[in-house]
Structure formats: structure tokens, C-alpha cells
């Protein structure tokens, strides 16, 4: 096994020598034909004959205890196999490798918590029986109004400890210009289109779980822990996942329930949450209150910056939204304070939703920078340029690669930023007010341990194996491109097998670390294969040239298949973070631009154009990377304008737990969007030099829209999303 810790910058020499020309190319998705023809199986599909159906009974109170469950009426329905409750292995919520929920408890932590399960011959019977289960409660008062609870400064939640550098208050007092603004962001649902679903069955004492999950290696351990069995008895598969967005990083209640149910009935059992259940049984992004203070001189040089927030969590969960994560390395300034305080509430768990931190933190910092630039009479890009740090201003570490200034410049040029009116509200077309806005995008980059195996078969085809998932992120395709590039094979000669914990353990899909980590592991495995090919070719590895299945060393050219000579070459690669990961500050960067039209009469906002330029290290596949970035930009658009989950403060229920009322972007909301890359391979990040893509697009894109609304109308809204009602009263006279 080629085992590489990132103790120093590293790039496989073979990647620089490669002649296949696959990596980075905008090739079509490997699994595309299966997806467009409906043949790609997701968790709930292609279940074995005899699979029983499960429905989950959920709590109808917001806080309290279950005092009794009467299942007689449900059990009497023909077709009902069993009703299960009170099993000590039943979790009260979602679990993951770092934190487990309460187990076997009769406590209700929030409305909609799964408390009993019904297994039946058909979906219709399971659903009806679930409604006939009567649950008795001891209902207790709950904390449902997140703005009305006490805030704790002294807590241990989350992975971002508070930062206090220098004397912030003194620096603010001395600053010539100070901006002090408070922003609020609402609850966001991850709302993957495929609801959480699991198919579970036992073969002897082995448990098989096919589930809609982003990180199956972690899920395997979590499931084993919840059930109190050894990890080696659990196998998890997720060959296709219908979107994740953070919501499928842990193990939902329904997966454990399905395993318990399958054991009880001695048959495979499957369950899919209803859309409304996903709002309660899947974590959401915490609402936040964010106070942003910036102190600077009259030229805009920042001397003090503080991003202080409050986020929420229930009593049974340990995550805390890392609100200022993207602000930490963004701008210069000696005195710095970053902290996120905690409020405890009795609502479903909050957790990581696409770009935890940046997705909402950038609303505050990037809208504040826009307002500060206006106060100083500076172009917003110029203000950012004047505060571009040369080292990480919070940690003092050197940047691995950072092309933020280039992103601003290229973005401004392509977008036509010079045509922006500096006086807000001065461009009008009929009843529409037109404005332009921009924002910086930044998403921290993580290096995570990952393994992959590559096998060069006797037929000259290569197979890549790892337990990575493809949640729409292009994993199948970029793994094939990496192996093809390293081994000189066309994409048609590569097989990719992923989404099964029997394969080498990867990092899974989350935090935008999946692509870089998995492809790095595959590239390292290929390096070992090349070494072996060199031996078989009787040539130095560095002298090998590989293309289209042929190996050339000097004047000799041989088909790869001949070199394999009936004995396949298998190799494993493993990459782990190391000293270089520790010593550098790593992030993906970008510049976001938006043009909006605001109806002067109704306050309706239409986004007319969006454009972004991004620095994501090596681009592994230009087509899938661009699509993912654009998808993130659309999320920012929807965060700016529509997404807003509302809690009923009387009972802890969501007012809008489905697509009918929780408005994700639809096709008509989205203009054509342009995204470009400035490619600088980041050798400090991982052996393929790729940084995260999936979450970067959402960072700053919403702020660019909100800043464009201000430029169009002169109105600043600090409470996201910017809906018509908030805008209308402040619009200039028609």
C-alpha cells in the first residue's frame, strides 16, 4: 500500500507526465445513462422479493414523555406484521461517529420524533396502521421560540473554539470608521429530493443496510453502536444517493428502526420517510443572529473585525453551526473576535447543511463589506483588495494557494462590473429597478484520510474500488478520470465500484473533502501499479509513457494487457492529513456577481444574471465541477430570496415542512448562470491538488444577490430571506 501523509506538498510525477488527457476534461458522467433511463437503483428500489414495508409513528407533542402506546387497533389490521416500540436500541434522533442520541428513552425531545414503528405487507397497510397507533403523552412546556431563550456563552459545542486576538473593543474605539450591524438567517432544510430511505435485512447474524447516506463508513460504525453489535457484522451500501446536502451525513432514526424491524419479522424491511417527516427526522441548519463589527481607517484598512453569533441546538445533540468559519481567514485586521453562542431549544436537531458556516456567515460579512464600501465611497472590490491578507490573519499560517484577487478581477471583467451604477436606485427599466452586487466566496478546505484500491486486470481494464458515495457530486466519473489519466487508459476501460463498506474506507461525501481525498487515494494506488509495470517492462517507472492502453519505454511499446500477463496488478493507496495540512491555511475561493431586477411596485425580485469565478485547485472534471458550483449559486439565490422554515412557537411544529410551502428555487427562478475556474493545482491540499467544490458556490452568492438588491433600490435588509413584505415599505416612490 502506498500510504502518504501530507507532510509536504506532493504531486505524483505520473500526473505531470500523463498523456491520456482525461483529468479535468468535461466528460459526461460515467453513470449518466443509468440515471437518465431510470435504471440506477436508489436505497428504496430493487428490494428483494418478500420485503416488508415500514411506517414510522412520530411524536405529536413538542416536549415531554411517552407514557403509553396502544397498538391493538393497528395490530388488528390484516397485513400488519408487527408494531414495535420501547426497544432499548431505538435512538431518539440521528447519530454519527462523534455523537449518539439518547437510546431507548421515553423522552420526547421534539415534535415529529420517531417513537414507534409499524411493519406490514404493503405500504398502504403500514401507513394506515401507523395512524391507528394511539400514543399517550405527559406533555411538558417546551422552548420553541429560539429568540426567547437564554444564550450560553460558555459551552463546548461545535468544532470552532472562540477566537480572541488583540483588544477588539479598544481597536474599535480607535477606528475612524465603524460599522456595526446585526443580521438574521432562518432555518434551512437540506431537503434532498430523495427522502431518507433504508432497506435492511439480516443474513444470519450479518446485517445488510442499503441506505440513502453520504458517509457509509461512518454509518456502519454508528449502526453497529446503536444495535450493540460488532462493526464487522454490518455492511452498508449506497450505490446511488438522491442528494445529500449534509442531511445524510449521519444515520437517521429510520435506518436503525429498519434493522430492528427486519430482525423482528425475519424479512427484509424497507422504509422511506414521508416528505413532512424529513423536516423533523433529519437535521436542519440552525437559524442565526449574527453581529458583525468592522473598524477601519478612512482608506478602508481594517483594524478590527468581529463576527459574533447565536445558533441553536436541542438537548440531545452536539453540533453547533460554525457561523464565522468562512470569515476567519477572509480579511486582514489585527484585532479579531469570532464566537458562536448557544441557545438550547426543543426542536429537531440542527446540523451540517451544505457549507455549514459559510452558507449563512457570508451573508453577514459580505453584506457588511458592501455597506462599509458604500460608507467609505469605495468600490466594493477595492475595499476587499485593500484588506486582502498575505497570511491567514487569524492563525498566522501561510496560505497554500489563494487566487481571490484574480477571481475578483476576472469576475469583474467578465460580468461588466464597470457598468454598475454607484448610486443605488439610479438604473430603471420600466417598473423594474436594476442593480448589481458582488461578494467574496470562501470555503475552508479539509484533508481527510481515504483509501482506494485499483486493480489492473488481465484484460487490460482497470477497476477502482472505494467506499465513497456519489451523491450527485461526480465521484464515479472523477475516479475513472484519475485512474485513466494515471494508467493511460480511456474512460471506457475503467470500472468504478463504490458505495459499499466492503470496499476500502474513504472519507465519504461531506465538507467538500470527498473528491480530493478519494481521487488522491486512487492516484497513489496507481503509482504503485506504475512501479510494478516498470519492473515488468524492465524500465524505470519515470520512463514509462502510457496512452490508450499502450505502454512505451524508449523504443518499445507494449499493450498494457500483455504486461499484465494473466496476473492482475492490484494496489492500494491511502492519503492522510499531515504536517503540511497543519502548517497551511487552505480554502477554495471565488468572486460572486449578481444582477437583479426589483419591481418598484410589488417588490418582486428577479435575479437576471449570476456569474462567478472560482479557485478550486485542480479541476477534476470541468463539466461536473461547474454544474456543482452553479447548483451552489442557485442555493445562495434561494437563501437570499425564498428559503425560510418557520416554527410555530406554541408547539414546536414547522409551519412549512414540505415543498409546497418551503420554497426551494424552481427552474423559473434561475437565470442562465456563468461559472469559470482559475486553476492552480494545490499541492498542499492532497496528491491530486484539488480543493472543495460542492459548498463553495453557495458561499457569498446570496450576499451578492442581497447587495444587488441594495444597488437596485437603496434598501438594505438584514433579515434573510429578502421577501417582498420586507422590501415593499422601503422602496423608493414609484
Amino acid at each position: 500500500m502506498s500510504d502518504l501523509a501530507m507532510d509536504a506538498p506532493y504531486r505524483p510525477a505520473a500526473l505531470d507526465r500523463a498523456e491520456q488527457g482525461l483529468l479535468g476534461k468535461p466528460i459526461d458522467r460515467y453513470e449518466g445513462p443509468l440515471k437518465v433511463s431510470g435504471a440506477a437503483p436508489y436505497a428504496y428500489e430493487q428490494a428483494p422479493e418478500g420485503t416488508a414495508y415500514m411506517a414510522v409513528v412520530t411524536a405529536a407533542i413538542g416536549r415531554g414523555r411517552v407514557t403509553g402506546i396502544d397498538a391493538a387497533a393497528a395490530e388488528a389490521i390484516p397485513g400488519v406484521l408487527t408494531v414495535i416500540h420501547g426497544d432499548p436500541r431505538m435512538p431518539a434522533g440521528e447519530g454519527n461517529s462523534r455523537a449518539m442520541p439518547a437510546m431507548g428513552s421515553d423522552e420526547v425531545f421534539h415534535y415529529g420524533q420517531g417513537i414507534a414503528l409499524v411493519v406490514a405487507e404493503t405500504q398502504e397497510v403500514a401507513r394506515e396502521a401507523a395512524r391507528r397507533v394511539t400514543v399517550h403523552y405527559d406533555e411538558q412546556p417546551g422552548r420553541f421560540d429560539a429568540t426567547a431563550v437564554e444564550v450560553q456563552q460558555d459551552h463546548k459545542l461545535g468544532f470552532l473554539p472562540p477566537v480572541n486576538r488583540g483588544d477588539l473593543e479598544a481597536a474599535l474605539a480607535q477606528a475612524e470608521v465603524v460599522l456595526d450591524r446585526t443580521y438574521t438567517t432562518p432555518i434551512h432544510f437540506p431537503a434532498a429530493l430523495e427522502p431518507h430511505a433504508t432497506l435492511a435485512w439480516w443474513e444470519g447474524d450479518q446485517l445488510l443496510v442499503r441506505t440513502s447516506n453520504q458517509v457509509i463508513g461512518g454509518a456502519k460504525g454508528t449502526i453497529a453502536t446503536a444495535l450493540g453489535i460488532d462493526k464487522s457484522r454490518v455492511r452498508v451500501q449506497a450505490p446511488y444517493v438522491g442528494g445529500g446536502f449534509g442531511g445524510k451525513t449521519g444515520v437517521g432514526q429510520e435506518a436503525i428502526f429498519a434493522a430492528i424491524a427486519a430482525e423482528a419479522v425475519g424479512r427484509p424491511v424497507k422504509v422511506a420517510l414521508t416528505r413532512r417527516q424529513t423536516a423533523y427526522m433529519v437535521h436542519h441548519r440552525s437559524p442565526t443572529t449574527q453581529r458583525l463589527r468592522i473598524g477601519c481607517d478612512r482608506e478602508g484598512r481594517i483594524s478590527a473585525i468581529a463576527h459574533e453569533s447565536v445558533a441553536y441546538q436541542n438537548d440531545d445533540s452536539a453540533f453547533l453551526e460554525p457561523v464565522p468559519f468562512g470569515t476567519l481567514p477572509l480579511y486582514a485586521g489585527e484585532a479579531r473576535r469570532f464566537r458562536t453562542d448557544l441557545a438550547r431549544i426543543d426542536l429537531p436537531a440542527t446540523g451540517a447543511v451544505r457549507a455549514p458556516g459559510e452558507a449563512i456567515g457570508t451573508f453577514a460579512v459580505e453584506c457588511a463589506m458592501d455597506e462599509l464600501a458604500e460608507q467609505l465611497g469605495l468600490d466594493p472590490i477595492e475595499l476587499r483588495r485593500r484588506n486582502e491578507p498575505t497570511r491567514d490573519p487569524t492563525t498566522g499560517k501561510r496560505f497554500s494557494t489563494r487566487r481571490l484577487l484574480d477571481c475578483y478581477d476576472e469576475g469583474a471583467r467578465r460580468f461588466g462590473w464597470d457598468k454598475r451604477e454607484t448610486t443605488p436606485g439610479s438604473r430603471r427599466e420600466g417598473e423594474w429597478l436594476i442593480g448589481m452586487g458582488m461578494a467574496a466566496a470562501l470555503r475552508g478546505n479539509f484533508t481527510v484520510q481515504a483509501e482506494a484500491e485499483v486493480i489492473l486486470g488481465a484484460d487490460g481494464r482497470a477497476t477502482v474500488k472505494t467506499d465513497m458515495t456519489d451523491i450527485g457530486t461526480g465521484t464515479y466519473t472523477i475516479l475513472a478520470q484519475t485512474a485513466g489519466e494515471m494508467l493511460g487508459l480511456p474512460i471506457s476501460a475503467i470500472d468504478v465500484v463504490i458505495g459499499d463498506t466492503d470496499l476500502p474506507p474513504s472519507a465519504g461525501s461531506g465538507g467538500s473533502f470527498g473528491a480530493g481525498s478519494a481521487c488522491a487515494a486512487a492516484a497513489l494506488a496507481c503509482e504503485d501499479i506504475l512501479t510494478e509495470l516498470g519492473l515488468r517492462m524492465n524500465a524505470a517507472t519515470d520512463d514509462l509513457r502510457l496512452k490508450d492502453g499502450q505502454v512505451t519505454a524508449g523504443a518499445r511499446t507494449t499493450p498494457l494487457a500483455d504486461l499484465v500477463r494473466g496476473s492482475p496488478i492490484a494496489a492500494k493507496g491511502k492519503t492522510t492529513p499531515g504536517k503540511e495540512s497543519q502548517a497551511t491555511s487552505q480554502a477554495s475561493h471565488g468572486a460572486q456577481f449578481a444582477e437583479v431586477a426589483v419591481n418598484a411596485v410589488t417588490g418582486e425580485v428577479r435575479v437576471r444574471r449570476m456569474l462567478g469565478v472560482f479557485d478550486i485547485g485542480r479541476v477534476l472534471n470541468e463539466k461536473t465541477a461547474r454544474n456543482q458550483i452553479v447548483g451552489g449559486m442557485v442555493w445562495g439565490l434561494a437563501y437570499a430570496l425564498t428559503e425560510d422554515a418557520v416554527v410555530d412557537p406554541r408547539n414546536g411544529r414547522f409551519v412549512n415542512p414540505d415543498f409546497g410551502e418551503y420554497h426551494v428555487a424552481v427552474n423559473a427562478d434561475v437565470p442562465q448562470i456563468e461559472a469559470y475556474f482559475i486553476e492552480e493545482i494545490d499541492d498542499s491540499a492532497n496528491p491530486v491538488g484539488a480543493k472543495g467544490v460542492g459548498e463553495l458556490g453557495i458561499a457569498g452568492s446570496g450576499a451578492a444577490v442581497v447587495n444587488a438588491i441594495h444597488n437596485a433600490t437603496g434598501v438594505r435588509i438584514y433579515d434573510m430571506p429578502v421577501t417582498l413584505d420586507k422590501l415593499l415599505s422601503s422602496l423608493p416612490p414609484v
Partner: protein
Amino acid sequence: MRFTINGSKREADPDIRASLLDLLREEFRLTGTKKGCDHGQCGACTVLVNGRRINACLTLAVMHQEDDIVTIEGLGSADNLHPMQAAFVRHDGYQCGYCTPGQICSAVGMLDEVAKGWPSHVSDDLSSPVLDEAEISERMSGNLCRCSAYPTIVDAIREVHDA
């Protein structure tokens, strides 16, 4: 009950509570048609019934005696793609793929509506609408894509329409 599904005669005895979507997915195992919401809010379950696109989750199976139903599997297969399926691959009109069968069935049904001259909310000319980007986006807004591949979905549909 009798149905014609993807050109073949099929029989079933559905539960009166079963939706057409569940009949297709659970009884006939045509799992290409997806369930995203079960409430007519996402379009993942779009199929063609007697040539028109509908949300299969919003209609009961028992309402479809003798109906002619086409699902994504009936449009084309992985090694013999329908032009709309091929265009979605070429333009990367998807990511996770979960909304995709619904998008494709919806797009095929939508182009037929345009060919028949049906106007939409954004049509300037109500008698013979021109299928530009705004028309495609408007007419495809019943199909959510949480991955938000909307721009490439529009590109794919436009290419098929213009061909």
C-alpha cells in the same frame, strides 16, 4: 385491472388506496419513476398518461383502467437512449439523478404541448408560443431539482427542441 405500460399490456389488482406511482414502483417494479414528496409538489413522479404529463403520486391507480402509460423506462434504455435522455447526459442536466426521470418525462410531454400551440404564463403570443429559455423554465417549474441543475436542464431541452 388492465393497463398498457410502456407498450405492454399489464394486469394488476391494486389496493384502492394505491397511487399510480406506487403501482408503478412497487407492483410493476418500474422504479425509474421517483417519489420525492408524494404530494404533487416536486414532479419527480412525472409520467406520460395517454400522452400527457401528470404527477403519478396525485392520481389513484384504480383511475387508470385501460390507460396508456409511458414511464422513463419506456422512453429509452441505458444502451438505447431517447434523444431527451441523451441530451441530459451530454449537457449534464442533473447531478444526483433523482429528479431526472421526472424531468425527462416532463420535458417530452412539455415539447408536445408546445407543438400543439398551448401557451404558458409567460407566452407573449397566446396562439403560437415560441420556446425560448423563459418558456422552458416556466413550463418546467413543476419539476424541482434540489441539486439545482436548472441551467443545464434548460440547455438539454432546448437542444432537443431545436433539433
